[in-house]
């Protein structure tokens, strides 16, 4: 307590004297010069003191959990009131295979579902498309039509579970299928809850599963905001994602800045449609990466909440505190896992998951140790889930809220990242917004530069990765999940039978109506619902929209 009465300039002088006379001399004697930097290349000082927080104000900069600017968390109770949702992203093979995995995960204490679709679905093509050759059921579950979706959720009551769907370019179509399945179960769209990722901007920036050009894609997303606010009020119509931006090579600050600027872009487009900010903003949610550098990640999550609260309140004039909340899901970092001595990945995941929890996440996916090779095996995914349960029930880290709040280091890092992210946001504002910045290739170039810088640092052993460029050793191969070759065949049989046995005239008619609505720039959600209910396939629906919107070809650069 004594330090509180000290003035910051006194501490600064004392710190400098300590550094010169004590620290530097002692360091010289024991270690060669070395740069201490984060995984993002950020320089970290040897010690943080109140001098690093010169104008720090408790109420303005930190405040209580559940109070603006929400640096300490969006809820007053945080994980004491409700533990984070343990949501393992999963999907493989046919809808039957994945349905079985979901029942397994729920039986073992998972608390929400998260659907991974195979690449043809993510790209909006059917399993019988030439580009789908070799891909069916590989990276996720194969969904071609409502028939597959019915199997995927059979025996899973959609009024009781919440479901997150990682789907972007064709998000509106898959969401329509989910609503249709709920209706068939007798569950009203008013009560279903979950999330569609539906964040196309980060696809152009990083993950690259785009279909239409940016502007019609944005229009389709605003359609889901508008429809959701009225008809599916408990649904999160977007999960604005930094995860993939980070995986593509961004630094922590680039992840933070580009993701929040994407969020700003969606709000601007929603407002231009004439939507009321406080009607759609509370349904916006976020999704971040949790990488290896523990404190930098925690500071990133804290800074994200603070910036978003300020943006929503001051830039957009939102009045409801719910609009100011940055609610987020976290996934541990896939790229940080290594193929060498793969059991060590369990430790990496645990550290990353801990950062997410201390950063105040609302839900969490922990990666499995075998994911540098393939989709996770059941054993590997169980360890990943158990890691979360150990954090929640054994470690005691969730006993108090924001335990690192007030740490000179963490607060200084939070402020520093906040400042840097705001600079990026301003820069993109000046370019004319994120759609424009993407057209100019700006975020893509920044990320590619960071990725290359990092690889060079690893190659030069400036960054050490245990088992990869240090402490190497031979390791026996580990058991991996294999996708049965029969999957593709089964899927093609089902697709053919669906296409044969439906009422063809109804399919044709609803697809024609969809095209007309797209041409007339109407909200497409009601039309998509009609299409999926006739068992029009995803590929047929996307093809109809491609006729109107065209397809995006990104400029090839490196």
């Amino acid at each position, binding site marked *: 307590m004594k330090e509180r009465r000290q003035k910051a300039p006194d501490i600064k002088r004392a710190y400098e004297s300590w550094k010169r006379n004590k620290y530097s001399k002692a360091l010289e004697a024991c270690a060669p010069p070395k740069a201490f930097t984060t995984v993002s290349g950020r320089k970290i000082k040897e010690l943080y003191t109140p001098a690093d927080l010169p104008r720090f104000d408790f109420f303005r900069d930190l405040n209580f959990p559940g109070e603006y600017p929400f640096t300490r968390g969006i809820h007053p109770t945080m994980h004491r009131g409700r533990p984070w949702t343990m949501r393992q992203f999963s999907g493989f093979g046919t809808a039957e295979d994945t349905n079985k995995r979901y029942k397994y995960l729920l039986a073992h204490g998972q608390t929400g579902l998260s659907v991974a679709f195979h690449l*043809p679905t993510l790209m909006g093509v059917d399993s019988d498309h030439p580009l789908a050759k070799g891909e069916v059921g590989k990276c996720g579950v194969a969904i071609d039509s409502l028939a597959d979706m019915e199997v995927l959720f059979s025996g899973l009551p959609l009024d009781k579970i919440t479901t997150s769907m990682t789907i972007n370019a064709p998000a509106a179509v898959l969401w329509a299928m989910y609503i249709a399945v709920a209706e068939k179960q007798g569950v009203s769209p008013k009560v279903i809850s979950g999330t569609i990722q539906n964040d196309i901007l980060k696809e152009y920036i990083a993950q690259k599963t785009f279909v239409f050009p940016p502007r019609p894609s944005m229009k389709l997303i605003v359609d889901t905001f508008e429809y959701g606010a009225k008809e599916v009020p408990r649904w999160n119509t977007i999960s604005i994602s930094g995860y993939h931006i980070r995986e593509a090579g961004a630094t922590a600050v680039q992840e933070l800045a580009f993701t929040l600027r994407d969020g700003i872009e969606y709000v601007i487009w929603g407002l231009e449609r004439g939507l009321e900010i406080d009607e759609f903003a509370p349904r916006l949610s976020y999704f971040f990466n949790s990488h290896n550098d523990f404190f930098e990640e925690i500071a990133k999550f804290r800074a994200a909440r603070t910036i978003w609260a300020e943006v929503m309140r001051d830039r957009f004039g939102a009045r409801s505190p719910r609009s100011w909340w940055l609610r987020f899901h976290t996934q541990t970092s896939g790229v940080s896992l290594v193929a060498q001595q793969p059991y060590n990945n369990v430790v990496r995941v645990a550290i990353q998951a801990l950062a997410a929890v201390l950063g105040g996440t609302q839900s969490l996916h922990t990666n499995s140790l075998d994911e540098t090779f393939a989709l996770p095996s059941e054993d590997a995914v169980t360890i990943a889930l158990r890691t979360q349960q150990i954090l929640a029930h054994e470690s005691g880290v969730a006993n108090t809220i924001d335990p690192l709040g007030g740490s000179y280091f963490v607060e200084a890092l939070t402020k520093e990242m906040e400042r840097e992210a705001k600079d990026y946001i301003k820069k993109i504002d000046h370019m004319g917004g994120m759609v424009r910045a993407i057209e100019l290739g700006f975020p893509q170039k920044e990320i590619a530069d960071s990725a290359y810088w990092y690889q060079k640092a690893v190659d030069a052993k400036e960054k050490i990765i245990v088992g990869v460029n240090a402490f190497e050793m031979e390791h026996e191969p580990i058991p991996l999940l294999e996708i049965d070759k029969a999957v593709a065949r089964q899927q093609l049989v089902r697709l053919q039978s669906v296409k044969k046995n439906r009422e063809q005239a109804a399919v044709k008619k609803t697809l024609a109506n969809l095209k007309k609505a797209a041409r007339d720039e109407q909200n497409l959600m009601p039309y998509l619902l009609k299409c999926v209910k006739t068992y029009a396939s995803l590929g047929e629906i996307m093809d109809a929209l491609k006729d109107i919107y065209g397809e995006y070809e*990104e400029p*090839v650069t490196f």
Partner: protein
Amino acid sequence: MPVKKIRVLIAKPGLDGHDRGAKVICRALRDAGMEVIYTGLRRTPDEIVSAAIQEDADLIGLSILSGAHPILFPRIIKLLKEKGAGDIPVIAGGIIPEKDVPRMKKVGIREIFLPGTSTQDIVGWIREHIEKGKKIAKTP
């Protein structure tokens, strides 16, 4: 007299959009003095083979993370042979389980670089195996 540069085609077959690795390799090879042509995403075997022939590539590097390599790699090798370009060596990287490596090599992929490989190792391999004007010797 200036030595003719090694020309490498970096190609992305498969539906995945994970181009971080491909782009990092492109830059590393360029910085090592090679000429690099990058195909961009989601290229079919046909497109990749045509591009390699058209660009007179000394080497093709495939990057794939979708798991479709068991289907796509053999098709690319087969098409190269059919079009009389079977002498262009093909190397690959991405998410490829170790146990698939022997099968892929048997099909004709010269080398597979698994996750964690340093870019300098790849540069070294290319320099060792490709000599300008005298394409790589046939697989022993």
